[in-house]
């Protein structure tokens, strides 16, 4: 058993912003020297505001974007960007918007089965069986397999996305805001499913979200990202009860719990946490 299912060592990604033909390009450090470790079977929650580099980080972990510096290690081995198929068997994504992440012209069965065909796993009969098994696991009724994404509700589509991600039996799932496009009553169904799958299959999650209530519920460790850097990381309870960084404190105090009479939180000026990072 490796020590860490997923390890990031000094991962950075820079973008050159050209202002004009003769002007020197400025460098945007979208992700700046990020180091994270997730032990097998654990969940790391990555939180931060929009534009802080969360999604760039996710793309590098999935091998969709080469890092400028640093390494991504899966099971203690650096990932090989030239062998995308091998990488896809180890790590799979679940995206935010279940309306645009599924091909509208393919049936649900074709969508879930495609990874098996691409990887040449089994024959047609065993592939169909695998699709049926995985659909049972994520709670998709069999009659939906012949339908198209347009006929499904948001929650059902996200179940399809989860089934497609799991069919190659990867060890790690990268969930990029998987419930923020869903209604709250459906969000709870999907969160329960993710918790069940983690237990049954021993999955490791990188869970990216801006909803701290959801993060606290689901994760073992938390990393807070601000302007491309990790400003604070630690165990869930340590972050949620003893946050040190002013940005983490501001994030935590802006969680609005459904308790009337508390009013709205008074936040410090954002320059405070900008300076501290």
């Amino acid at each position, binding site marked *: 058993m490796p020590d860490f299912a997923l390890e990031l060592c000094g991962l950075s990604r820079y973008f050159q912003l050209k202002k004009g033909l003769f002007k020197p390009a400025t460098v945007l450090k979208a992700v700046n020297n990020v180091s994270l470790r997730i032990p097998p079977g654990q969940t790391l929650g990555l939180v931060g*505001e*929009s534009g802080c580099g969360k999604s760039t980080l996710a793309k590098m972990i999935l091998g969709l974007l080469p890092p400028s510096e640093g390494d991504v290690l899966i099971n203690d081995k650096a990932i090989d960007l030239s062998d995308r198929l091998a990488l896809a068997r180890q790590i799979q994504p679940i995206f935010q918007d279940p309306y645009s992440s599924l091909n509208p012209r393919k049936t649900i069965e074709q969508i879930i089965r495609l990874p098996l065909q691409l990887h040449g796993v089994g024959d047609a009969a065993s592939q169909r069986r695998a699709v049926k098994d995985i659909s049972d696991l994520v709670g998709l009724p069999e009659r939906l397999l012949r339908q198209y994404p347009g006929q499904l*509700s948001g*929650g*059902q589509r996200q179940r399809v996305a989860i089934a497609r991600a799991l069919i190659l039996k990867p060890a790690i799932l990268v969930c990029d805001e998987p419930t923020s496009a869903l*209604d*709250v*009553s*459906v*969000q*709870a*169904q999907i*969160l*329960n499913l993710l*918790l069940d799958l983690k237990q049954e299959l021993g999955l490791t999650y990188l869970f990216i979200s*801006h*909803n*701290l*209530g*959801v993060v*606290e*519920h*689901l994760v073992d460790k938390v990393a807070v990202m601000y302007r491309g850097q990790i400003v604070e990381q630690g165990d*869930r309870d340590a972050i*949620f009860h003893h946050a040190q960084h002013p940005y983490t404190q*501001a*994030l*935590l*105090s*802006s*969680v*609005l*719990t*459904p*308790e*009337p*009479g*508390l*009013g*709205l*939180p*008074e*936040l410090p000026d*954002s320059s405070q946490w900008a300076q501290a990072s």
Partner: protein
Amino acid sequence: MSVLLDVKNLQVDLPTANGMLHAVRGIDFQVNRGEMLCIVGESGCGKSMTSMALMGLLPKRAQCTAERMAFDGTDLLTLSKKERNQIRGMRMSMIFQEPMTSLNPSYTLGNQLCEGILKHKKISRSEARERAIYLLERAGVPYAAERLEQYPHQLSGGLRQRVMIAMALMCEPDLIIADEPTTALDVTIQAQILRLIRELQQEFGTAVIFITHDLGVVARIADWVAVMYAGQVVETASARQLFSSPVHPYTQGLLNCIPVPGRTAPGSHLQAIPGVVPSLVGELQGCAFRNRCDRASTECTRSQPQLISVDGGQHQVRCPVMTQQWQEAV
């Protein structure tokens, strides 16, 4: 407190290829001057259609009927297009969800801020500019005077929403309808914008109809709450009453399925509401929530439940079963 907006039995129907879609199926509510009413519900429950009906911005094919829709004594239903335009923007304005798409990218902010007030009021261009600068500053936009010459793409999402709020306040309206104004924003920005709306509302004495799906937001800002499900109000009460003693199974379900830091045990199963919302195409028989409700009986399939008061006052619930239980318990 005087009633500013009085709506009775509002219905909005949209013809679709599969038949008539009843988006809003008879809702009643009142908004008092200077009060904040939150309409909360999931996507497709008719909350946005309600706000569009109030503003007179429904798509052309939509059919809107109501027994009463009175704004400060004026009947909105019988107004001509011209009379409607005089109220809209002047006495009733709107903040939309997407600050990215609701500002026109090809006009400067100053141009867009002043357009309404120049049309509605006899006011000079420089006076309008002064008011725009004053309101931008009140809305927390730094360098307000210079911003007037800028275009929407030069601003961040949070700043754009502040501009939208300033724009809604330009003509000192009596009523602002805010349709999910903070959904597209980061949580820290959301808290700031909500504070701002609350402060400005109290300062200017504006009534606000705040539409959202987030119960956390509702709890912190609302005076009055209406919970909508499948085109109907299923429970309405003051914010304090609704959160301390929710009666309708849907309201209870919504409150139970959000993980709350410090209250929900991490990693435990959330009490999800099973199933999905019913289709609103065609007629609904009985209670719209019965298929997802664990207390549903045969009675619920037979008759359409009515809004009834649980406490003899203004806490009303559309569920006879739970109302009876609640009254017996008290």
